[in-house]
């Protein structure tokens, strides 16, 4: 009997690994070996050991921003099931709380970016908010589709033991939801084709540019929060797309972990095969994902 708390701790521990895996896949696709998969951990440790430098133009908003972001995202993690294993916190409508906590984290990040008074950060903040405003309704549509198909109202029930049956009955609807969820993952986590995490041109950045003035432990917390967010979305996608619910928790967990690794690999492949979209086309992409999710809901409601 795997305690839900263990699932939570597993998520906390393994989150930075996804980032490392994506970078490794991209490097292999480009013909290089790339940095070690555990590199994010080394980076976090290095940043944590450094001293903090804060701009004189910032205030307590900036100081607390990184802490709130990390805390909110970690709290959101507590709601996410690991494949068939329940999350520590599960109740009807917890998907809404998940979206709310992620929004809180994003809000704190945006505020701390704007608090620096730099125009670069302000530009990144406005882009981030704009795209998230489009992505959140689509995420809710995906949740609605999955809830309708599986009949549960909390994330753990939706992605719980009833999922294989739901795939059998509403396969098309869930496939569309999974596709939309993948696009949302790319959009919310600032991946290509929405944002290039490896760029060094500030004018083209969305997520990275908001962290320009963070350093040391602040930056470590922000990076960790981003990794947690990527893990959360990856967990949701793997939970949806890999309907292995044998009842043996160890097996389900192993399948789930394989699923998250696969999701990371797919993100890496997508990143290495596409170029980043024009900023004006990103809303089109997100609305397209929304159309898929909406169609999935329509199919689910009809049946």
């Amino acid at each position: 009997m795997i305690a839900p708390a263990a699932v939570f701790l597993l998520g906390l521990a393994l989150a930075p690994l996804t980032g490392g895996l994506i970078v490794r896949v991209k490097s292999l696709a480009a013909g290089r070996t790339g940095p070690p998969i555990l590199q994010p951990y080394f980076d976090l440790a290095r940043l944590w050991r450094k001293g903090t430098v804060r701009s004189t133009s910032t205030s307590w908003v900036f100081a607390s921003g990184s802490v709130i972001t990390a805390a909110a995202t970690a709290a959101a993690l507590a709601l996410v099931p690991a494949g068939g294993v329940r999350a520590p916190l599960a109740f009807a409508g917890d998907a809404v709380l998940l979206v709310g906590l992620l929004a809180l984290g994003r809000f704190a990040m945006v505020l701390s970016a704007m608090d620096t008074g730099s125009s670069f950060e302000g530009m990144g903040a406005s882009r981030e908010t704009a795209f998230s405003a489009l992505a959140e309704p689509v995420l809710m549509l995906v949740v609605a589709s999955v809830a309708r198909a599986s009949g549960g109202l909390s994330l753990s029930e939706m992605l719980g033991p009833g999922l294989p049956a739901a795939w059998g009955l509403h396969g098309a609807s869930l496939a569309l939801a999974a596709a939309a969820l993948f696009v949302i993952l790319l959009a919310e986590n600032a991946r290509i084709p929405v944002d290039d995490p490896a760029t060094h041109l500030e004018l083209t950045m969305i997520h990275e540019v908001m962290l320009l003035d963070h350093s040391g432990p602040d930056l470590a917390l922000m990076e960790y929060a981003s990794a947690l967010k990527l893990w959360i979305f990856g967990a949701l996608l793997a939970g949806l797309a890999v309907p292995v619910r044998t009842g043996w928790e160890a097996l389900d967990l192993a399948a789930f972990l394989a699923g998250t690794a696969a999701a990371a690999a797919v993100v890496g492949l997508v990143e290495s095969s596409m170029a980043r979209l024009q900023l004006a086309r990103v809303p089109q992409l997100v609305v397209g994902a929304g159309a898929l999710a909406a169609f999935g809901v329509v199919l689910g409601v009809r049946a």
Partner: protein
Amino acid sequence: MTTLADLLLIVVILVDLFALASSRLGALIRIVALQGLALGLLPLIAHHEQLTWRTAALAGGSLALKGAVFPWLLLRATRQDSVRRELTPFVGYTASLLAGVAIVGAAFVMGSRLPLPFPAVSDLLVPVALSTTIIGQFLIVSRRKAATQVLGYLVLENGIFVFGLTLSVRMPALVEMGVLLDVFIGVFVMGLAVRHIQQEFDSIDASQLTHLRDLP
């Protein structure tokens, strides 16, 4: 249980939504060809128990026409167009996509109000037919380029074809062949017209075709 027929019909709707969102002419022509292919396979699946020469001929004919002949005609007609993109449609792409989703939703609602009096190969037939028809008309109305309007007409005909499938076992083959023939000649003539428009106006921007009017 999602059957193969259901899957093909879902592909049809996904193609509709993609056609609403895309601005590249070449991609549009190919994606509508894909829709034609999916529809050509449907009669074979719908009647796989009683496969007759007639059904096979119909499926083969529409596969050939919609999958190969029409895209070839349209690609040839638009070859000289220097800008193979629909840059400024009357209704923007995001708005078109949202309208498309609304149309699909409305079509499903209407489909639930109009149940077929006999069992058909899939429940999705009536909603898919209605939504594809309306989305085809929307494409004709909201796009500037004459070639995109012809593609909208093709999507419209595809929608009607889906509906015809509910009855194909009950309608004589001659009629369906006649319909196919008419669509073929129609697209052929339209392709010729697009070529003439291209030569006459140096572009296939149909918003230039507004000379004749009574109300300014």
